[in-house]
């Protein structure tokens, strides 16, 4: 029935929505930033544990749609062990992939995150996928405040 949506709602997304990874409060976090998408009411809190400039651990809390939940869940998995610079680079590539500015984007470069490429065709949903990353960006810039996609 929802054949048209297969590119957007891939099985991986349903899986992460049902069982989000790293879904917990982190008591000893070095950074804690809140992200909010006023358009749909998605709210998340991102926690990072840093070791020098390496992201040692990442977790989150909050509620959102399947796209935003899967996006933040996948993100916390993929950024663990990455340096700040690597994570920022990934954000940039991810952003280009989801906003479709660069058609030739190398899907391999984003690994598992490629499952979110489908949002490109749904402009109303792009912010759901990028909220996690904007929040990460704020956390890396050490902005201890809430950020909003608006």
């Amino acid at each position: 029935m929802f054949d048209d949506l297969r590119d957007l709602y891939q099985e991986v997304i349903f899986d992460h929505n049902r069982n989000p990874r790293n879904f917990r409060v982190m008591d000893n976090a070095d950074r804690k930033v809140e992200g909010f998408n006023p358009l749909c009411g998605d709210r998340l809190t991102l926690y990072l544990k840093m070791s020098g400039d390496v992201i040692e651990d990442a977790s989150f809390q909050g509620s959102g749609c399947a796209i935003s939940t899967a996006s933040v869940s996948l993100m916390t998995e993929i950024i663990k062990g990455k340096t700040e610079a690597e994570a920022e680079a990934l954000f940039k590539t991810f952003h280009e992939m989801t906003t479709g500015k660069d058609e030739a984007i190398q899907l391999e470069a984003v690994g598992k995150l490629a499952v979110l490429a489908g949002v490109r065709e749904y402009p109303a949903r792009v912010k759901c996928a990028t909220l996690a990353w904007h929040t990460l960006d704020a956390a890396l810039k050490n902005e201890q405040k809430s950020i909003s996609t608006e």
Partner: protein
Amino acid sequence: MTHFPVEKIRLDFPILEEKIRNKPLVYLDNAASCQKPNAVIDTISHVYRHDYANVHRGVHTLSVRSTDKFESAREKIRAFINADSTKEIIITKGTTESINLVAQTYGKANLKPGDEILITAMEHHSNIVPWQMLCEQTGAILKVAPINQQGELIVTEFEKLLGDKTRLVAVVHMSNALGTINPVKNIIDLAHSRSIPVLLDGAQAIPHMAVDVQALDCDFYAFSGHKLYGPSGVGILYGKRALLEAMPPYQGGGDMIRKVTFEETEYNSLPYKFEAGTPSIADVIGLGAAIEYLNDIGMDAIAAYEAELLNYATEKAKQIKGLRIIGEAAEKGAILSFVLDRIHPHDIGTMLDSLGVAIRAGHHCAMPVMDFYEVPATARASFAMYNTQQEIDVLMNGIESLIEVFG
């Protein structure tokens, strides 16, 4: 079902022929804005092709013709809400501007520090924020009457909040987030017994029921053309003449003046005093056409048909496991707000869209209502006179299927 010529009505709305993602459009976002019949589309096009010039300015034939059509639209609007005079029909951009107008003229002129404005917990942001701004400007205080779990105003609590300091009551006639129809007659009587004027936000009520401002005895009534099958960019503020006469003007400019010198300006009479600048001429005439179209069908027939649609949808929705209806007032208009267990409204919206079904997902410009029900957002199907039971079946089948897909 009683006989209501829905199939014939559908033919008057060309957009209903559209295919969305290769499926027939099922348009259930009418509370946000509803679609336009040929009567409106053709009228607007006719104005630009044959009758267009600025209004109230020229002696030339076209300007006279345009002014006539414009003013006859105002008369249709007056009759539609049974106002006493066209002097009481102020043309604005929409409900939002109408409410802001009252806040910035009546409100600014009459409110002092410590005075109170009373609203309800189910208001649209456009009946909250203008009052908050006014409170900031004047030192007045905004009071909020609570609602119960069904989404009904608790009238006894409302009455307790009507005090010596209350200067204005502003209440939504029908809630866009919940569908609740407020007991406005009762509210107005309670306020008037204490000599407090009442503004009704009629944005949602106006397309769903016959509204008689004199029978209600409301002091102000605000609504938008685009939710009444008319064009966007035009709305109405009804106000009782005595109040409007006493109010200072809103914006300054052309049309709202009688005589201007650099020393002094004499304001124009009603309703022009509140209508500075060139209005959305063709759209106002288009709104007149929408009203004529609705009069032919009859607001009572529309209300009866939509009540059947809502009942049908509500019964079906109740059979879906994991679906919770948000807003179960005994008096309710054709709006079905709901949430699904573990499925975010935005996912519901995107999934239904792929089936051609347009609903709204979000906070519906009523964030305090979302907070009350402790949900970030709801999905909302809102019905119009051109919707059918078959369309509701498409919606409900879609909901059942997406619940399955999400697992």
